[in-house]
């Protein structure tokens, strides 16, 4: 999963508000204009002006006169009506079927939790959105057709109340539906993922493990990579499509009361040269989850038991850099080496070549608020990286590429203050493999004077010394000649302690809730002037546009191979290759210009539809990331904006409509 750069709510809000205000203003002006044209068609231009002015004049008292009590009455009616339609029940039945049969397809992978989350979030989203679309696009047209609306609008009911009441009523119903589905899914997923393993072998004891000769990298018995300090290995049986590797690891400690000595998975403790040497039995994680190991007894007869799965339900909180800058080989700032199409997202760091081995190329991640409280004052902070690798020579594809990490302090006053610079720590990576590097708070490094001269060296504290002013730079370099490492801002992050899972889960559902509210508002607003089938068609179209916004915007971008709709049509008819240039001339210019125009207008249209992807947080849940509160705020603001805009649309269209026609 790629987390894109994301503006904070406050950064987003003002431009967003301006955009929203602009759109609403444009919509109102357009609405008035269309209204005027229609009215002048019917009543002549002067009368029409009077009519439009009257509608506008009446709208203000209508907004002010909108009463919560009447809105609630309308909402209650909407709920009763929708329940009577039984669509909600049908949705539930489909959901139950989805869960029952989905179970068969969802296991059997290293990351069953991803597949479960994915399927369930998708199913919930689809069902909820379709259900609310159905109930809300039937309601108003049915009322108009049955003329029940006559008895409503002849009461002191404002058009706003008719619309808001429905949006709230269906919103309430949808919320209940969504909450129930969310709860059921949660229990369903946790029940299905809940499993434990037994150790392969006749006895569930240490005796079923085999010893590893010192220095082994690849185990001869299992063919798997062996941890450097492993002394014994074993395996569990297969459950839920996977098994775990068990290793007995050897550690040394100085202190007698090291908490590790009291862990439940201790196999043995020995005194060697006044130090404690202890062995622990660990269960290596598979796809992010592991099991608590408990060893009871001593020697070869010690019983091994594995607990329930832990780590499925994570809500990792990544702490991203505020910005990333790339330096080229010569240490000058640029955008990162371009290695082809991909580079629009990732910048590539040059590893140097044979002539210039010590490349200065690096990506510098700048943090401006790097404080210990963001990491719960932990001594070790996990740094997680997913890097792209671009090889200029292939050689051994399995051979990992080496990268280097270095911390630097960023003095507020670089002319007079000294700087802290850490040692470069090397690591190896394969392409797009999640690297988890524990970074200790205590960092070996040196102090450098403003003129670059050496001052001192030793062990310094990452927070208290390096980031004393909250600022820290992390530079990433490529240590292999002729290779490149690709990185974007979101690819490297420190991991703060996890968010509470159920809260994150709730936030994931808030995203679906936002989509649902927009669909309801859309269906209700459309149904003030369209019949049910057309409303559904319209909403479905908006959904498609909304879910594929980036794709459609990409389509409408002007500079594609083969040109826009007209040009491509001509190419098809004249059987021209996409790369061949058309003859220059008036005709070609005309074609290109009209293509440009059409494409831009189509691109503009996508801004009318909500970008549903921006409201879709299911991938956060699937991949176990915490959903940033900023995103939730932005999503809620977008939803509110759409609801307000659509309510206005519905209001004016209902107000100017002859109900009894």
């Amino acid at each position, binding site marked *: 999963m790629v987390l894109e750069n994301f503006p904070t709510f406050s950064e987003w809000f003002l431009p967003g508000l301006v955009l929203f205000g602009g759109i609403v203003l444009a919509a109102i002006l357009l609405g008035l204009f269309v209204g005027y044209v229609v009215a002048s068609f019917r009543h002549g231009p002067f009368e029409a002006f009077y009519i439009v002015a009257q509608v506008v004049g009446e709208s203000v008292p209508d907004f002010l006169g909108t009463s919560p009590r*009447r809105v609630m*009455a309308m909402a209650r009616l909407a709920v009763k009506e929708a329940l009577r339609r039984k669509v909600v029940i049908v949705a539930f039945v489909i959901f139950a079927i989805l869960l029952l049969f989905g179970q068969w397809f969802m296991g059997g992978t290293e990351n069953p939790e991803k597949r479960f989350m994915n399927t369930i979030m998708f199913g919930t989203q689809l069902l909820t959105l379709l259900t609310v679309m159905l109930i809300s696009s039937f309601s108003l047209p049915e009322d108009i057709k049955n003329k029940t609306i*006559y008895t409503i609008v002849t009461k*002191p*009911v404002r058009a706003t109340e008719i619309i808001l009441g429905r949006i709230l009523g269906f919103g309430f119903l949808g919320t209940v539906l969504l909450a129930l589905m969310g709860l059921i899914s949660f229990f369903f997923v946790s029940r299905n993922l809940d499993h434990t393993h037994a150790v392969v072998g006749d006895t569930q004891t240490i005796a079923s493990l085999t010893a590893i000769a010192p220095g082994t990298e690849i185990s001869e018995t299992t063919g798997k990579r062996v941890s450097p300090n492993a002394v014994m290995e074993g395996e569990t049986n297969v459950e839920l499509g996977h098994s775990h590797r068990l290793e007995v690891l050897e550690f040394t400690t100085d202190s007698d009361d090291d908490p590790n000595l009291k862990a439940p998975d201790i196999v043995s403790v020995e005194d060697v040269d006044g130090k404690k040497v202890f062995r622990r039995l660990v269960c290596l994680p598979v796809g992010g989850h592991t099991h608590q190991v408990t060893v009871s007894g001593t020697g070869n007869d010690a019983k091994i038991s594995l607990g329930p799965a832990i780590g499925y339900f994570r809500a990792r909180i990544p702490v991203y850099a505020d910005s990333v800058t790339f330096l080229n080989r010569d240490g000058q700032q640029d955008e990162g080496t371009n290695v082809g199409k991909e580079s629009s997202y990732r910048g590539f760091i040059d590893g140097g070549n044979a002539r210039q081995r010590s490349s200065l190329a690096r990506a510098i991640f700048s943090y401006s608020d790097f404080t210990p409280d963001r990491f719960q004052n932990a001594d070790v902070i996990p740094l997680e990286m997913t890097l792209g690798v671009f090889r200029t020579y292939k050689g051994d594809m399995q051979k990992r590429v080496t990268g280097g990490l270095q911390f630097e302090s960023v003095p507020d006053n670089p002319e007079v203050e000294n700087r802290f610079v850490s040692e470069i720590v090397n690591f190896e990576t394969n392409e797009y493999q999640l690297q988890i590097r524990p970074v200790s708070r205590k960092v070996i490094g040196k102090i450098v004077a403003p003129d670059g001269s050496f001052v001192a060296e030793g062990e310094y504290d990452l927070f208290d010394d390096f980031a004393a002013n909250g600022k820290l730079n992390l530079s990433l370099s490529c240590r292999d000649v002729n290779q490149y490492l690709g990185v974007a801002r979101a690819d490297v992050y420190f991991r703060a302690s996890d968010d509470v899972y159920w809260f994150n889960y709730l936030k994931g559902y808030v995203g679906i809730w936002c989509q649902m509210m927009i669909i309801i508002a859309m269906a209700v607003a459309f149904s003030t002037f369209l019949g049910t089938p057309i409303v559904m068609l319209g909403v479905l179209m908006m959904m498609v546009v909304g879910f594929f916004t980036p794709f459609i915007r990409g389509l409408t971008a002007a500079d594609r191979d083969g040109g826009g709709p007209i040009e491509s049509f001509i190419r098809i008819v004249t059987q021209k290759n996409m790369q061949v240039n058309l003859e220059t001339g008036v005709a070609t210019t005309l074609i290109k210009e009209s293509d440009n125009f059409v494409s831009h207008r189509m691109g503009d249209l996508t801004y009318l539809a909500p970008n549903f992807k921006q409201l879709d947080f299911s991938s956060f849940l699937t991949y176990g990331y915490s959903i940033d509160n900023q995103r939730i705020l932005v999503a809620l603001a977008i939803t509110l904006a759409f609801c307000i805009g659509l309510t206005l649309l519905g209001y004016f269209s209902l107000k100017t409509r002859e109900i*009894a*026609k």
Partner: protein
Amino acid sequence: MATDTSSSETKTSKLEQTNPDYNPNIVIEAQNLTKIYRDFWGRQKVRALNALDLEVKKGEIFGLLGPNGSGKSTTIKLLLGLLFPTSGRAVVFGENATEVTKNERIGYLPEESYLYKFLTAEETLDFYGRLFDMPSEVRKERVQKLIQQVGLGHAKRRQLREYSKGMTRRIGLAQALINDPDLVLLDEPTSGLDPLGTREMKDMILKLRDEGKTVVMCSHLLGDVQDVCDRIAILYQGDLKELGRVDSLLQVSDETSIRAKNLPAAAQEEIREVIKKHGGDVIGVENPKSTLEELFLQIVRESEQRPGQRVSGSDS
């Protein structure tokens, strides 16, 4: 009776009158009210109402009469803002008919009862009650009272989908009265009611007037109209054909009827002599007035012969 009201000067002068100093005794005012139904393309389909001028005064029962399709329902819908006039104005309580605030004081019974079939009688009235500014105790009390009043106490917990036509009509009336309106617009109130229900409906309309409320009803059941209405307007193909007090409209001016009690035969003979002496013809003592039915049929017949003849609403 005045013939053609020609529009322009009277219209403007009336427009000026309306809102600034609105006369509380005039509840409804239609000024040159015209409705032309158009199709989707804006082409004219039906001229349902033609330059109607009308005033309804506070506290009276006003009847709109006319054959099917003459524009009665259209008039009521225009007065409620359910339709927008093609030209002219509909003013209710001194406000434009499209203004929602006037609805606080209005009750409307549509030609058919357009109610939510999935609600029970109680829920229906409770729902409509919530649309007004009334405290919940008042609402609950009114709901029960109205249910008793329209005689649906035995069926108040049943869904409206199970109701018969007359029962639906009754709950429709209760719905129209939920806010204790000052003006009640009834579109064919007695349709679908049994004789007893018709009687009750007429009594209720009279009672409403006694409470000082204004009632506008339309119907083609002339007996009903004659029984309850103070004033009537007769529409024919969208034109106003007759407007006035029921009693004076039905007064036959070239006839005189004399009623007396305990008159001996000699005296009767004497009176006949006197009438004869003055050149009169004795017709009889019965039928002192014509019936509304006669008037109605006569107007319809005349209108068919001489289309276009109209009355103005301002003179009565």
